[in-house]
């Protein structure tokens, strides 16, 4: 099974909230500074489409996604 590993760069983040809007089960925003909080760095398969969308629409390119095939390194 493909696994998805996420990384969110809080320094790049501008707090637009697109990830929290698109994949609220995986991303939130810090209540104080508004920047990204990663709730689940290895989201389940059911969240994969939403997570890809969140990474794609992030205005500051703060979200990176590594998808690993089984047996891959």
């Amino acid at each position, binding site marked *: 099974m493909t696994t998805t590993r996420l990384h969110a760069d809080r320094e790049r983040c501008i707090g637009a909230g697109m990830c929290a*809007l698109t994949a609220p089960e995986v991303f939130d925003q810090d209540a104080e500074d508004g920047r990204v909080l990663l709730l689940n760095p290895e989201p389940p398969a059911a969240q994969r489409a939403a997570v890809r969308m969140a990474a794609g629409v992030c205005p500051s390119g703060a979200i990176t996604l590594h998808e690993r095939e089984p047996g891959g390194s």
Partner: protein
Amino acid sequence: MSESLHTVTPLPAQRRPGCPFDPPAELLDARRHGPISRYTHPGGKPGWMITGYDMVRSVLADPRFSSRKELMNVVDFEIPPAPPGEFLLMDEPQHSRYRKPLVGKFTVRRMRLLTERIEQVTADCLDAMEKAGPPTDLVTAFAKPIPTVVICELLGVPYEDRGSFQEQIDTFMGGEASDEELIAAYTATQEYLAGLVAAKRANPTDDVLSELTGSDLTDEELKGISLLLLSAGFDTTANMLSLGTFALLQNPAQLAALRADPALTDQAVEELLRYLSVAKTFWRTALEDVELGGRTIEAGTTVVLSYHTANRDPERFTDPHVLDLRRPYEGHLAFSHGIHQCLGQQLARIEMRVAFRALVDRFPTLRLAVPAEEVVLRPETADIFGVKSLPVTWDKETS
């Protein structure tokens, strides 16, 4: 390569008669020739026009392109830098100094907490419309008051001051004011905001401006931030609501689909944002020579980014000129992209979701009160596109 280069006549190009929702023909034509075209700024300076979705997006994400107002290379005279606090027209690190303290106040979560209040404000407008009876101007009865009340309450502008403030913003944003009118409106606004900042410092209340007085921002900076938030908060959403209603009324099958299915509302708002792109263009200036699509953008050259045309890019969207409220959301440039992407977008989304939903539910027979070609549009010189008024009517309930 350059001999085949397409050239666009200076903006403001006009929209085609009968096509109030589409970008001007010159820009659609430019996109057909490629994502980037030669362009001469209205002040005579040579520049570029970018109409391709991917290219607009990549310029917005590229720190080699600057937002600094004083670097705009479009006229022969020097342009002063943005006043303190107007961070839309600044680069890092100045931009972050202003945006950072605001970001936490505009999160998805905090904006959702305003839903109930926005529903109340919307219901008040609709009640007043119903009570006064048809016909009415939807701009003054609905589209303007909702975002005005909401941004004023959020920022902390007292209720009794809203009317005059809205007039001044209209003068700035309408695209038709003379220099004298602009200066008068600017001076009055500056004086008003100076008083407001002083009042919040003396007696903080429960609002964003009062919270900001607790930071290290100066009075001048707070004035600039307030002006930016108020003008962005009033004018953009107001024009989306009025032009969006016009677009729905001109697409009755889409309007019927929205009315029949509340679950379509969120998607419908994203599609209206894409289709209408009322913040239609912006610009950046190259800080160094940059290669774009095989062209060299020379350092110091200003490029115009047509968000509206990019949001109609056939390489990005299927049937881009069709308003399709069921279109799956896959991102758009209506709120821009990169570090300057709209700070208030989550507020705007909730305002539009609540307001469009309530309007279509309340008035099932809503229609234009004049022929569509008589609806008066804002001139293309206005930064934010829209209608000046939208005369609508409906059948009164008979019981």
